[in-house]
């Protein structure tokens, strides 16, 4: 694989075979991808720190190591597509464009949070960006994504409903019901499985009788592809192909991203079910490090670029924390508002 | 050993329900002391013992209905001094059965089981729940029990429209004028609603029991007693003038109401016409020695009782006033005595404060007469050829024609009139 600074980078699949040629990537584009991943990485690191300072409470599920998936996929979606995510959603929310300040504030529980402080880390919502949560029940978002897509189909809209979930969700009944419905009704859902090999503390081979998850999708008649989730370019390419397919043929598609989380399931997880060795091996495929190396090798990235990106991210993050710190608490008197829609609303 | 029996608390009482023992075995009691509360179909009444001694044994449990005359308790007459009863010597009592052992709480106020709605109704009607028998499970007092208790306090109806016979001497109808001090039965303002939300009383809808009691009494009175009526307008100027002078000399709390003059006059008049101070026992007239004038007292929230003041004719006006005040307060807190309920020989009813000029009441069996006084009003009066404004009150007598006639009845009213002209002799 070789490239020049002007040509960008050619993409190939992880096992080295040539794939359908993807669009040539440019420096600007690459820097945006890198920036996107860095934002998430630094945001998550800061969140971990704030959690230990008890600024963020409840459960905190961090995306460190999986950044390439969210960033790559979001590049493939249009603003009027829908996104359904899980409780491990910070990466998707940031990549979708939800302001980091509103996400931080939400995790602080402040009224200027994206969910008015009502949801916290696991329940980000932003209707203006068609970001529909944020679900704490594993598999809980899949039927909703099917419904969003069903509405588009019935109303003749060519939009994608992108649905993120993990390998653990594949065991849940709702996974099967949702894939079956999506295939039966041919609704435009893009199923995105982030297979990080663990359902909380249970490794995949103890979780699924059939660990080749894309085969599960195929068994429902849904075209599926496995993708190296640590390679942001591969993710983007696959996502673009699949999203375009969903949009044009108004049918579901399935992508399985093989990825890994470098941190524990949540801040409360002692992470005793993995070996340090395994984690270190996966860290050698850190998506940010991998991409940075690639870009340097292709001379698309300099140290100055990196410093600048880091500095930009740091500033943005500091601002986000300041927004969260300064945010107001929702008045307790408003506790019972918006359980139901007010009359006339 | 003396017996304490279920007393007759009215001529038509056949049975009573022992509600509550106020004394326990071992307690020293003296004659006249209240030892129990008994429920009749007219009222809950405190009952006194007529023996001095020590309660030996209680034979009837609270909640039990027994015929009049049933032995309720045994009292060991021990020649103890007839002074005020010694306080119960709790330390000396032999270990009583747990059920009978009085505790401080019991002595203070027994826990009454009453439904919330019934409690509210009792409050409205001015009834003490402790005095009501409950017919619900575990003796729980329910609304209907409160209504029955309230009806029992209303043996006669005082409403003018129940007057069956027309007034024999109709007075000229004039606008009622408020003149002179208020009439005999001062009615304090009804208590304001409690802090609980105001509950609409369903007494009107649920007054069947009350009406039955009233209907029965009224019907019986009218059915059996051939009523006739006399009326007299009495010049009260002397009485009022004398009263004003008297009251000037007295502190406010000692002041007399004109009503006591009326009651005293009635009592003294009965000395002159003694056959009206009697009861009819079904076959014959039984004259009474004591003149015990029953005074109709209206209760908050409706209802009427007519307990008597014993030996009314022998009491001074002051004593009469005190007795009257005491009766009113005890009537309203529901602590009248059995003898007060059973001993009236005549009743006086006054509707003066209601503003009506005259009332012709229905006789309370087994009495043979009832005296009615209306509102004191200013009327034109001819005195020595002059027309004057004069305070007058209309006095009426409803009498039993089996035992008296117009001639004797007129003598009575004339005596009342005459007596009221000499108020310092009352």
């Amino acid at each position, binding site marked *: 694989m070789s490239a020049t600074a002007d040509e960008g980078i050619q993409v190939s699949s992880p096992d080295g075979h040539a794939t359908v040629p993807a669009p040539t990537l440019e420096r600007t584009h690459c820097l945006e991808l890198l920036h996107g991943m860095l934002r998430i990485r630094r945001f998550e690191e800061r969140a971990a720190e704030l959690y230990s300072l008890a600024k963020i409470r409840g459960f905190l599920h961090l995306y460190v190591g999986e950044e390439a998936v969210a960033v790559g996929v979001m590049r493939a979606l249009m603003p009027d597509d*829908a996104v359904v995510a899980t409780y491990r959603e910070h990466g998707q929310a940031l990549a979708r464009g939800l302001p980091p300040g509103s996400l931080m504030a939400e995790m602080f529980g402040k009224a200027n*949070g*994206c*969910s*008015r*402080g*009502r*949801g916290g880390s696991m*329940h980000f*919502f*932003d*209707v203006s960006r068609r970001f*529909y*949560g*944020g*679900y*704490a*029940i594993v598999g*809980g978002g*899949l*039927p*909703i*994504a*099917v*419904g*969003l897509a*069903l*509405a588009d189909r*019935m*109303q003749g809209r060519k939009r994608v*409903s992108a649905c993120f979930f993990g390998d653990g969700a594949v065991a849940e*009944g*709702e996974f099967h*019901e*949702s894939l*079956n*419905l999506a295939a*039966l*009704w041919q609704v435009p859902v893009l199923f995105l499985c982030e297979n990080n090999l663990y359902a909380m503390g249970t490794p995949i081979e103890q979780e699924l009788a059939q660990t080749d998850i894309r085969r599960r999708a195929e068994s429902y008649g849904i075209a599926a592809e496995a993708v190296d989730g640590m390679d942001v370019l591969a993710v983007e390419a696959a996502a673009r192909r699949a999203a375009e397919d969903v949009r044009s043929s108004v049918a579901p598609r399935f992508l399985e991203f093989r990825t890994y989380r470098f941190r524990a399931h949540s801040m409360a997880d002692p992470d005793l079910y993995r070996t340090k060795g395994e984690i270190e091996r996966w860290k050698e495929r850190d998506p940010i490090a991998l991409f940075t190396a690639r870009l340097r090798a292709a001379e698309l990235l300099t140290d100055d670029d990196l410093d600048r990106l880091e500095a930009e991210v740091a500033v943005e993050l500091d601002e986000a924390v300041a927004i969260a710190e300064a945010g107001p608490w929702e008045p307790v008197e408003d506790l019972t*508002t*918006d*359980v*139901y*829609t007010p009359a006339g*609303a | 050993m003396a017996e304490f029996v279920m007393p007759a608390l009215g001529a038509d009482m056949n049975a009573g329900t022992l509600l509550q023992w106020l004394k326990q075995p071992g307690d020293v009691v003296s004659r006249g002391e209240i030892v129990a509360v008994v429920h009749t179909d007219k009222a809950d009444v405190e009952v006194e013992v007529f023996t001095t001694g020590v309660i030996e044994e209680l034979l009837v449990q609270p909640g039990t209905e027994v015929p009049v005359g049933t032995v309720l308790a045994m009292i060991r007459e021990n020649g103890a001094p007839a002074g005020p009863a010694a306080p119960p010597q709790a330390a000396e009592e032999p270990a009583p059965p747990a059920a009978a052992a009085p505790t401080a709480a019991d002595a203070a106020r027994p826990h009454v089981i009453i*439904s*919330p*709605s*019934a*409690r*509210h109704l009792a409050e409205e009607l001015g009834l003490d729940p402790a005095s009501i028998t409950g017919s*619900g499970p575990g003796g729980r007092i*329910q*609304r209907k029990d409160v209504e029955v208790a309230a009806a029992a306090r209303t043996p006669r109806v005082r409403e003018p429209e129940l007057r069956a016979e027309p007034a024999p001497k109709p007075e000229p109808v004039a606008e009622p004028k408020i003149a002179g001090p208020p009439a005999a039965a001062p009615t304090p303002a009804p208590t304001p609603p409690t802090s*609980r*939300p105001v*509950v*609409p009383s*369903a007494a009107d*809808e649920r007054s069947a029991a009350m009406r039955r009691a009233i209907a029965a009494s009224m019907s019986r009175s009218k059915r059996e007693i051939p009523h006739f009526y006399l009326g007299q307008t009495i010049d009260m100027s002397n009485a009022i003038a004398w009263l004003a002078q008297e009251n000037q000399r007295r502190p406010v709390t000692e002041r007399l109401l004109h009503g006591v003059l009326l009651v005293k006059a009635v009592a003294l008049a009965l000395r002159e016409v003694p056959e009206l101070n009697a009861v009819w026992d079904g076959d014959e007239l039984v004259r009474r020695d004591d003149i015990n004038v029953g005074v109709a007292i209206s209760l908050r929230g409706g209802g009427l009782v007519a307990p008597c003041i014993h030996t009314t004719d022998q009491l001074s006006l002051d004593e009469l006033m005190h007795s009257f005040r005491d009766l009113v307060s005890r009537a309203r807190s529901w602590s009248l005595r059995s003898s007060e309920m059973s001993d009236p020989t005549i009743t006086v009813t006054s509707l003066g404060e209601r503003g009506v000029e005259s009332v012709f009441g229905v006789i309370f069996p087994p009495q043979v007469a009832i005296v009615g006084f209306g509102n004191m009003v200013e009327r034109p009066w001819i005195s020595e050829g002059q027309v004057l404004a004069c305070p007058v009150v209309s006095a009426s007598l409803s009498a039993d024609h089996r035992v008296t006639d117009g001639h004797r009845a007129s003598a009575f009213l004339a005596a009342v009139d005459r007596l009221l002209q000499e108020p310092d002799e009352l």
Partner: protein
Amino acid sequence: MSTVTLTYREAVRAGLRHALATDDRAFIMGEDVGGYGGAFAVSLGLLEEFGPERIRNTPLSESGFVGAGIGAALAGMRPIVEVMTVNFSMLALDQVVNNAATLRYMSGGQMSVPLVVRMATGGGRQLAAQHAHSLEGWYAHVPGIKSLSPATVEDARGMVLAALEDPDPVFIFEHATLYPLEAELDEEPSAVDIAHAIVRRQGSDVTLVTYGGSLGKCLDAAGELAADGIDAEVIDLRTLRPLDLDTILTSLAKTHRIVIVDEGWKTGGLAGEISAQVMERGFDLLDWPVQRVCSAEVPIPYAKHLEDAALPSAEAVVAVVKEMVI
């Protein structure tokens, strides 16, 4: 205004047809709603009229299609999901309780879920324990959703339309024994008020509060009691959440005695909730403790005499009232 005689099931159908005909966003989704015409024949004929996209047969995936209903509602549709019976609805409870009920609140008011879910409910047809549940109390327990119980033909039709007008999730429980009930209605369907209970029979001695399949039993009981001189007032709750306590208290102020007749199990049920509310706000009106007539604490049995004994009955209501009043 011309009238038409309809059965309860025809009335529901009329409501559904009117909804689909007047609102393009409305569609029906559920098991066997299409060619089969619905397990209770409610959607008979609708497939022919509106086509398979809008009369959408689903596989046996309660969680999947209730959740899809939520998603479709979020994206601007007006789905009317039919869960065949409340017995199967438990498979979808996660979507109901964790999503439908929470999304508005949890998003800080950004979205509402205008979803309608209809289910048949109740026992009395010898279908045994797994097909005889009355779980309305569970649904009424959850803030964020509304629960309706049409007991009359008029409500069967009108509540569908009222539910569709509501921007929040509305659950309609149709007691399966009511489907053949017949009545005369105005020909033109219209939404009914879903904020109030209705007094179906005036009375002065005792208040009977009930809903759904037990309304008929309470009216029967009232008839029997009348013969004994006891005048019962019967209130049809109609809406289980939010509860119209005011109508109940107005009645209690008259009668001072109340019996709640609820086909759910007594323990932890809706009748207990109503009893608590009555005690809290109507304490001084009570001349007798609140009584409840509910299903026996058993899985509903198959044999008829056992099932009859397990479910609330007019006889049971009469017996309870007589203890209170006499």
